[in-house]
C-alpha cells in the first residue's frame, strides 16, 4: 500500500487538476454557480426548521443552527458518495487507454466535495456569528480533526463503491437508497439526546440502542460536530400528551475515538479493496 500511495503522490497534479475540473464543470452552465451548493442546504434547513418547530413541537432556541451543524457534514457525506460511485465508470474510456493511478478518480470526487463543504462551513460561521450571535466555543479547534476523519471515512467508502460500480452498476442505486435510509439514522432532524431517552424508556434488555446508534461512525461524527460547534442545549418537545425534556449529554469521547478508528480502518480496507481490483477496470467489455 505504501508503494501505491507513493505512486498516487507522484500523480498529485493530476488529482488536483481533476478536482478543479470537477468544480468547474459542476456549475458551468448555471447562472448562480457555486451558490447552488449553499442554496440547497439553506432552503432544506429552513423547511426542516419550520416543520419541526411548528408541527413537531420542538422547543429549542436556534434550532436551525443545530440542524445546519449536522446537515452540512451530512451533505458532504451524501454528495461525495453519490459523485464518487460513478467516478470510475464515467471515465472508463480513459481508463482503458491511459495509465494513471485509478484511485485519483474517486478521490477527486471526494476532494471536490470537501472543498464545497469547507466553503459551506464558512457560510455556517457567518450565520452563527452574524445572525444567531452564538459564542464561538473553544472546542471549535477540533473541527479540522472531525473533517479529517470524516474525509477518510468517505474516501474509504468511495473507493469501495466506485470500484464495485464498474462491475455491477446496481451499486449506484443501492448507494442512493442506502443514503436515503441512512438520513433517518443519523442525528440531523433530531438530537442524540432523544436517542438516549428512547433507550431509557425501553425495556432493560434493549438498553444498547444509544451505543449501537453511535457505533455508526457517521452518526457519531455528526453528534460530535454539533457538540463542538454549538453550546449544549436542553431539547424540549411539546407532544400531544405531554411535554418531554431531554437534558443535554456531554460528548462521549470514547465513542468518538471508536468512530475515528473505524473511519481509518474503512479507509485502509477500502484502499486495499480498490487496489486489488483496479487493474481489472480496463478489461470490462
Amino acid at each position, binding site marked *: 500500500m505504501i508503494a501505491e500511495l507513493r505512486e498516487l503522490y507522484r500523480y498529485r*497534479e*493530476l488529482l488536483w*487538476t*481533476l478536482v478543479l*475540473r470537477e468544480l*468547474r*464543470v459542476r456549475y*458551468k*452552465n448555471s447562472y448562480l454557480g457555486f451558490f447552488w451548493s449553499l442554496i440547497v442546504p439553506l432552503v432544506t434547513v429552513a423547511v426542516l426548521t419550520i416543520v419541526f418547530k411548528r408541527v413537531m413541537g420542538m422547543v429549542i432556541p436556534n434550532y436551525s443552527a443545530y440542524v445546519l451543524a449536522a446537515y452540512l457534514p451530512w451533505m458532504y457525506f451524501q454528495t461525495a458518495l453519490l459523485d464518487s460511485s460513478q467516478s470510475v465508470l464515467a471515465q472508463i*474510456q*480513459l*481508463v*482503458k*487507454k*491511459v*495509465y*494513471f493511478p485509478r484511485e485519483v478518480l474517486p478521490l477527486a470526487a471526494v476532494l471536490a466535495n470537501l472543498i464545497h463543504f469547507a466553503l459551506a462551513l464558512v457560510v455556517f460561521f457567518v450565520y452563527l456569528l452574524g445572525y444567531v450571535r452564538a459564542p464561538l466555543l473553544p472546542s471549535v479547534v477540533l473541527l479540522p480533526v472531525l473533517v479529517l476523519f470524516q474525509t477518510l471515512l468517505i474516501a474509504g467508502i468511495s473507493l469501495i463503491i466506485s470500484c464495485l460500480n464498474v*462491475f*455491477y*452498476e*446496481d451499486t449506484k442505486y443501492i448507494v442512493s437508497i442506502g443514503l436515503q435510509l441512512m438520513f433517518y439514522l443519523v442525528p440531523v432532524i433530531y438530537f442524540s439526546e432523544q436517542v438516549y431517552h428512547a433507550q431509557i424508556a425501553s425495556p432493560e434488555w434493549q438498553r444498547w440502542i444509544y451505543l449501537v446508534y453511535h457505533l455508526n461512525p457517521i452518526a457519531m461524527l455528526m453528534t460530535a460536530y454539533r457538540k463542538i460547534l454549538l453550546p449544549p442545549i436542553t431539547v424540549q418537545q411539546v407532544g400531544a400528551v405531554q411535554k418531554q425534556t431531554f437534558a443535554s449529554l456531554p460528548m462521549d469521547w470514547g465513542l468518538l475515538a471508536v468512530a475515528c478508528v473505524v473511519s481509518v480502518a474503512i479507509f485502509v480496507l477500502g484502499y486495499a479493496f480498490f487496489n486489488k481490483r483496479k*487493474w481489472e477496470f*480496463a*478489461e470490462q467489455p
Partner: protein
Amino acid sequence: MKDAAILLEHISKSYRLSHQPYSSLKGILLSMFRYRRRIEVHQALNDVNLTIWRGETVGLIGVNGSGKSTLLAIIARVIRPTAGTVQVNGRVAPLLQLGVGFHPDLTGLENVYFNGIILGLTRQQIAERLPSIVRFAELEEFIDTPVRAYSSGMVLRLGFAVAVHTDPEIILMDEVLAVGDEAFQHKCLRKIQDFQREGRTILLVSHDMNQVRQVATRVVWLHQGHIMADGATKDVVAQYLEFTAQLERQTL
C-alpha cells in the same frame, strides 16, 4: 548493440468471459440458481515474445479479435498480463480515440491542460508548449470555446496535437488515424515521419494496409493471440493479404 524500447517475454493474457449480456445483480442472482456457471476463459494472447527496438515503426496487423489491442493495452500498462514480463524503456504516449478525455462543457484550453496532465506533462510544460499545440491543431480562434461546439475534426486535431507535444519516446496508435479527413491524415503522416527522423518508436494498430505500407518499417501479424509473422513490411503484409483473401474464399 541496438536498444530495446519494448521487451515482451512470454506474455499471455486470458479474460474470463461470462455469457451474460450485462453484469448486474440480477445476473448474479440468476447465475447462482443455474446448474453450471457459464464462464469461459478466452485466451487473448498466448506466449507472445516480442522485442521492439528504439526508432522502429512497427505495424500491428491481424483480423478482429486477434489480440492487437490487448497487446497495446499491456504496453500502455492499463492491463496487466496473466503471465510474462513487460519491459518498457521510455515514456509512452497513447494517442486517444476521438473525444476520449475531453469534457464537452470545458473550453479547448481547459481540455488541453487536462489531457496534457493525464499524459504525464506538468502544468508548466503545457504552458510552454501551448502556442505550438494550438497552432498544430489550427484552433487559434476557437481555443476558448467549449469543446461541445467543435466539429469532430477539431476535437481530433486537438487531441492529436496534445499527444504529439508530450514528447513521448514511444507512441501507441490504435486505429486513431482512420477518422480524420484527407488534410488531417496528411498532417499526421508528416508528423509520424518527423517522429521517425527523430528516432522515436511508434507502434501502430491498423486495418489500412496502405497506411501500414506507407509508414511501418516492420510488421507483426497477430492471429488468435499468437505471432503469425514478424518481419519486413512488404513480406508480412503480403502474407496477411493472402491469408485474408483465402479466408474470404472459404466463407463464400
